């Protein structure tokens, strides 16, 4: 088919798109060309190209010297076609250039080898690896670098193997290095090469999390206080002593509350593909119970006194050990064992108005010292295209946890959770839609801090940080249900959607700013909320569900990802519905 005929039938816009696709394919189609195809000479005639060896053949003999290697002293043969011939070559090689006829048989819009069987394609250049050399690593151990490189001594190394570039990005993705470059140098004999990996190390102390906010809590006597501030910080050294091990710490602080964490993660336990992690935790915290008309008694024989909340003061100390493994590039499995001692004290007796009825407050924690021992398994699947401003993909996890009563645990419970989020890139203006689903259930006697807390589901209340609860307020209750009577529950669900509008995209300092708005419905319920709903509610209002929503900006910056949301402020606007007995504000 002639060029004219082809061009006549190809629309320009389509041709442009096809050409771009072909270029992209061209850049990588050569990666999969296993045998050289050249219409003028057999592959072996190409100087400098070691004889191709089939995969799996170990350390083949170095190829024979080429018949006509290029030489700086030899004149370079000028090109003979219609392009690139108007200037003299500087240092021509002796080997002849190989070319095909210009514009022979159509295919004008797509020079892809796979599309034009008549056109010659590139040779696959292969060597035998004599070794892998790591340079520039002053702190990071070479074995840590080699962990990310799938090539080893004796391998057949194809310079077009996409794994080469992928390995480079893997090393960059560790966060250990500012720059990574691969190169080849001659080995000890012809056909042998050494793969040289040049790295430039970077600071590996990273700030993972910063949180600040305001909350409404109560003092240790349960009397409400004006707004108080809270803050959290999480930082880590991700390449401890150049071993690739992460050692991190986190802290959350509010008035009369403190939480500390120390954690480590070894991504290659004893050089294997298994990961291990560990956490040490310490919480000196309090929590606030009671909806309305709280009466509490601290000493036996004394009359109960009124307060805004019944406060639990508790300390947690312990840790966890886990082992994990990558099941695929996007799927990971973890198994964690946790052991904690808990020391809790709270009013001897306390009651509150639940609906119209006065009921005792169940603090869901053992008074004095107790032990918590659990085993947790988590399967996580993550195909998002970006960690902070994803535009497509899934992020889903399934978690199962059991309290190990035989191992001295005072809490016998089982938990099962499923969560999933999916992002869609919408066809107009790069807008993004996210759908989020969560469902969880706990059976048994879980301590309150292991149960579902409404603040973790409603955007109008501060969520817990490192397990510490900063706020005494009930849920907003937009729907007028008995959600206002619930603080902790053993059953929870959430369905929410988020719409994101990109406002700015950059390459430095600030990578992206998106305006987002979200809305959803959630529910949190305890056993009693199901078996014995609070008096004063009827019909659908006995279902403890409510609406949540948020509005703000997500910013992805060189300093990290930030969320500036207004729901925390909205949460202080007194528009929420109260319970029939008048829930606290």
């Amino acid at each position: 088919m002639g060029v004219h005929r082809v061009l006549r039938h190809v629309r320009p816009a389509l041709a442009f798109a096809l050409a771009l696709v072909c270029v992209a394919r061209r850049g990588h189609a050569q990666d999969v060309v296993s045998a050289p195809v050249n219409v003028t000479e057999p592959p072996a005639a190409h100087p400098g190209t070691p004889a191709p060896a089939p995969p799996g053949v170990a350390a083949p003999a170095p190829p024979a010297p080429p018949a006509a290697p290029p030489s700086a002293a030899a004149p370079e043969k000028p090109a003979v076609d219609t392009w690139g011939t108007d200037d003299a070559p500087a240092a021509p090689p002796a080997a002849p250039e190989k070319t095909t006829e210009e514009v022979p048989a159509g295919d004008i819009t797509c020079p892809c080898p796979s599309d034009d069987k008549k056109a010659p394609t590139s040779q696959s250049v292969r060597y035998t690896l004599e070794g892998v050399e790591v340079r520039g690593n002053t702190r990071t151990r070479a074995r840590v670098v080699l962990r990310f490189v799938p090539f080893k001594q004796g391998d057949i190394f194809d310079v077009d193997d996409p794994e080469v570039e992928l390995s480079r990005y893997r090393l960059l993705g560790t966060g250990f290095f500012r720059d990574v470059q691969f190169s080849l140098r001659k080995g000890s004999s012809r056909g042998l090469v050494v793969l040289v990996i040049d790295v430039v190390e970077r600071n590996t102390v990273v700030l993972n999390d910063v949180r600040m906010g305001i909350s409404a809590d109560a003092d240790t006597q349960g009397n409400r206080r004006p707004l108080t501030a809270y803050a959290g910080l999480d930082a880590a050294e991700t390449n401890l002593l150049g071993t690739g091990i992460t050692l991190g710490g986190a802290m959350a602080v509010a008035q009369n509350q403190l939480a500390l964490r120390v954690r480590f993660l070894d991504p290659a336990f004893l050089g294997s593909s298994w990961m291990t992690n560990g956490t040490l935790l310490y919480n000196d915290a309090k929590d606030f119970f009671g909806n309305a008309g709280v009466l509490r008694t601290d000493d036996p024989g004394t009359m109960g006194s009124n307060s805004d909340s019944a406060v639990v003061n508790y300390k947690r100390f312990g840790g966890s050990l886990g082992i994990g493994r990558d099941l695929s590039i996007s799927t990971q499995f973890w198994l964690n064992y946790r052991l904690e001692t808990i020391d809790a004290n709270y009013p001897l007796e306390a009651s509150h108005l639940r609906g119209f009825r006065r009921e005792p407050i169940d603090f869901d924690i053992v008074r004095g010292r107790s032990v918590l021992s659990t085993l947790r398994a988590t399967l996580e699947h993550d195909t998002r295209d970006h960690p902070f401003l994803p535009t497509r993909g899934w992020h889903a996890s399934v978690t199962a946890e059991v309290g190990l009563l035989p191992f001295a645990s005072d809490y016998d419970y089982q938990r099962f959770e499923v969560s999933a989020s999916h992002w869609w890139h919408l066809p107009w203006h790069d807008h993004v839609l996210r759908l989020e689903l969560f469902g969880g259930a706990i059976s048994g006697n879980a301590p309150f801090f292991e149960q579902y807390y409404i603040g973790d589901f409603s955007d109008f209340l501060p969520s817990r940080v490192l397990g510490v609860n900063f706020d005494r307020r009930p849920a907003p209750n937009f729907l007028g249900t008995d959600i206002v009577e619930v603080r902790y529950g053993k059953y929870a669900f959430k369905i929410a959607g988020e719409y994101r509008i990109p406002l700015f995209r950059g390459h430095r300092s600030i990578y992206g700013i998106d305006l987002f708005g979200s809305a959803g419905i959630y529910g949190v319920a305890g056993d009693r909320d199901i078996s014995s709903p609070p008096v004063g509610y009827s019909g659908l209002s006995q279902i403890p569900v409510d609406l949540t929503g948020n509005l703000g900006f997500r910013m992805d910056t060189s300093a990290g990802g930030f969320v500036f949301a207004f729901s925390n402020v909205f949460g202080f606007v007194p528009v929420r519905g109260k319970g029939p007995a008048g829930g606290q504000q």
Partner: protein
Amino acid sequence: MASNSAEATPLPWRATRRGHWLVVALTWLVVLLSAGNARAQEAQDQEPTDTVTRDARFEFDEGTGLLYLDGLLFRDIIDPALQSKLTRGLPTTIVLSAAIYRAGTPTPLSTTVQSCKVTWHVWEEAYFVEVTRPGSTRSSWTTTVEGVLRRCTEIHRLLAGDLTQIPRGVELLAAGKIQVNPVSAELLQKIKRWVMRPSATGTAAPGDALFSTFTGLFLQRIGDAERQQKFTTRPSLPVVFNSKNQ
């Protein structure tokens, strides 16, 4: 351990509330200022990637009815840093893709592309250069960077269209981009997914507020190519010749 001193001497409510609003206001001020500063910085950063006007000419072969793009040079793309990388033994690909426009109109009339792959053969100490253009692929050896630049960064007689696409006697211009080591969408997706879950590094978990402290830095550097420049040429009338008479 949290201190109880604040509880013993509580601040007046009014002062506390004023303090909170001050913190909130300062926070927003810092954010807005940093955003504004970043925008200014972005403007500076993005200057080099703006469209560059390059010299080129068109030649129209009356004998064959083909239009050629000629004399388009972009040696400056291969700066000394990239030149030094050419001898690393791994392929470097330089791709030019362009669309031909009638001057003053936004719809492309035709398209063209040239891909140049350079591989340094460590044992031969020479570059193997493969240039792919519409309808042809050409391989050659050279021992110098100059030879590479001449083959890969100088466009001569690149087929760009024919009579069925290009009207006679009109001013034309070419616009497109030059990429060094373009990354395929498939590989890019694979890279990003892996970086998204750097499980072998165990750093911050996705969802952490500042998860992208390091991954974001890296992710943003993964573009469509190691280097990319958009270009356009000045409008010009094609020079007419007849290859059958030559």
